[in-house]
């Protein structure tokens, strides 16, 4: 099936700014789904609020565009109710880790079979450029005219600590790598997290003098390195890309099936 078949053309044009990285994430994601040969009827995309969240409207899956920060909680209801469905949950950094932080760590703790895609542009784009929990200190934002003093979460470390059984990171510069990581994340049985650094030239790049979209993507190329690479060994300050966690642990819905079996047995 052509990638185009996964889009709802009726709903285009999309609302993302020129140069936004989110379209690249959508591209990588649809190619991953195509290469996995998934049936559109088996996929539910659940999203929250923000630029990233609008991705769910553009795809021809079952789509659930919810409220700010709660996409994983809605997705948990869908998944536990109908475990055969594939749950994809794209979120922005604020959506996933500020207002939605609690749901993120608990979905990871449960190891429920959902794929969380964190489109990290380090800013609240839709509301006009306020700093996020992933901005980090020393950044300029509309709510930080004197620069941020807030520390950033490390998404990968947070996901690992919370119990996610698949954790990966890449960037929009590495679109093909993203597709590979997403394929593995979607195929993984358990809670999988893929953080994709995605440029916001409009609200982050401009204010923080990181240039336009192309310059920001060059930054992703120059400031990151693959896990286990010589480049990373030589310069550990680079942002690591790749798969950080890939382990098997009991999955929540499968464990719940055992509860049903126990409950039904007691009834007999």
């Amino acid at each position: 099936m052509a990638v185009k078949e996964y889009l709802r053309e009726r709903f285009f044009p999309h609302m993302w700014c020129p140069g936004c990285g989110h379209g690249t994430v959508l591209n990588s994601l649809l190619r991953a789904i195509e290469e996995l040969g998934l049936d559109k009827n088996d996929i539910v995309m659940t999203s929250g609020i923000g630029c990233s969240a609008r991705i769910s409207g553009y795809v021809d899956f079952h789509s659930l565009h919810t409220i700010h920060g709660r996409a994983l909680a809605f997705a948990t209801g869908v998944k536990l109710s109908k475990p055969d469905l594939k749950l994809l949950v794209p979120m922005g950094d604020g959506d996933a880790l500020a207002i939605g932080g609690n749901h993120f760590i608990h979905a990871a703790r449960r190891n429920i079979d959902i794929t969380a895609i964190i489109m990290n542009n380090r800013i609240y784009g839709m509301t006009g450029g306020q700093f996020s929990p992933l901005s980090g200190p020393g950044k300029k934002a509309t709510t930080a005219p004197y620069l941020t003093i807030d520390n950033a979460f490390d998404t990968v470390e947070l996901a690992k600590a919370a119990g996610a059984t698949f954790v990966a990171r890449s960037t929009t510069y590495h679109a093909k790598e993203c597709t590979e990581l997403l394929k593995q994340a979607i195929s993984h049985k358990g809670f999988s997290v893929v953080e994709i650094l995605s440029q916001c030239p409009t609200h982050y790049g401009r204010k923080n003098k990181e240039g336009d979209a192309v310059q920001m993507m060059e930054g992703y190329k120059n400031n990151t390195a693959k896990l286990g690479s010589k480049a990373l060994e030589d310069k550990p300050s680079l942002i690591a890309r790749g798969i950080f966690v890939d382990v098997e642990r009991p999955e929540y819905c499968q464990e719940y099936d055992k509860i049903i079996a126990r409950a039904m047995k007691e009834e007999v």
Partner: protein
Amino acid sequence: MTSKSKKEIKFIQGNEACVEGALYAGVEFFAGYPITPSTEIAELLAGRLPEQGGKFIQMEDEIASMCAIVGASLTGRKVMTATSGPGFSLKQEAIGYACMAEIPCVIANVQRGGPSTGNPTHVGQGDINQARWGTHGDHNIIALTASNHQDVFSITVDAFNMAETYRTPVILLFDEAVGHLREKLVIPEAGELPIVDRLRTSVPKGVDYYPYLPREDGRLPMSDFGGHHRYNVTGLFHDMWGFPSNNPKVVNELLRHLVDKIDNNIQAITRYKEHCMEGAEYILISYGSSARSAIHLAQNRRAKGEKIGVLELQSIWPFPAQMVREKCRGAKAVLVVEMNMGQVMAQVKAAVDEPGRVFLANRIDGKLVTPSDIKQLLRVIQGRGV
């Protein structure tokens, strides 16, 4: 165990009667978070649901519980959550989402004293207006209540039926006293009470299905997530495809639809009971556990020849103003008996022909309003002294 052809009789708490009603109505999914005084509903369903292949999940918070049942409802399940005061506050945004996206679901709020943490283990009825207006923006809602376990059971069944019929969240406004009181419940046989199943679309595969295009009767047939119709669900104003729109015509029509689909069916939704109402000169309007005291007083005074009746409300929202007006016509006085600062009284005053004859017999100290509390006020109104 009694055989299935016989009625089952139980001596249980009101919260358990709610659980029995939910199971009778076909609940398949519950998400919740521990909170007094509603916790028993979650505890009981954690055991009962998996026995019949249903699902129970204890979520990380009240918000997540509300979100999870909305997600589960979209897969075609009958869903429920239960909470109390602070938890009800936390759920409000997601309740508004369910209103906007028209997702059937049932929320039991076993009321305690508020505001804030308030009086967690004591009775209150202060969430009447929150049930109506807790979430932001214009919308409509159905809220039901009951004063005894048989009615808790049947009104819970009604709640599930109305959620499916009108594609809306339905709120069960119980209270701590009814929730924790133990009394008899006779569980009706299967088929004795009507059950409304989900209305699913008959649009075949390959033909365009418009998830938000109401039929002529105003109802919107659904399609389960995972089925062959793929569509968008959003909390934004949306067109018939479910796709976001800020077109003024679309916005106007959708908001009116959300309000009208309930207001236009107020007669079908209205639930009430009359106790000793024949020729009543003094009418006590009450609901929930307060109604038990009102009924007790009215029965006692009737035995002494006083014409006192009770109009017990079982549907609070949409407020049955026309019914209340008709029942109160000609009454010497109407006393609203409730455990708040007059939330239903304000509705009654707005409804009746003579609002000056409406009085509030309330108690807000965490104690159940008693028959003698009501009697004291009644004596003053009747000019018989304190």
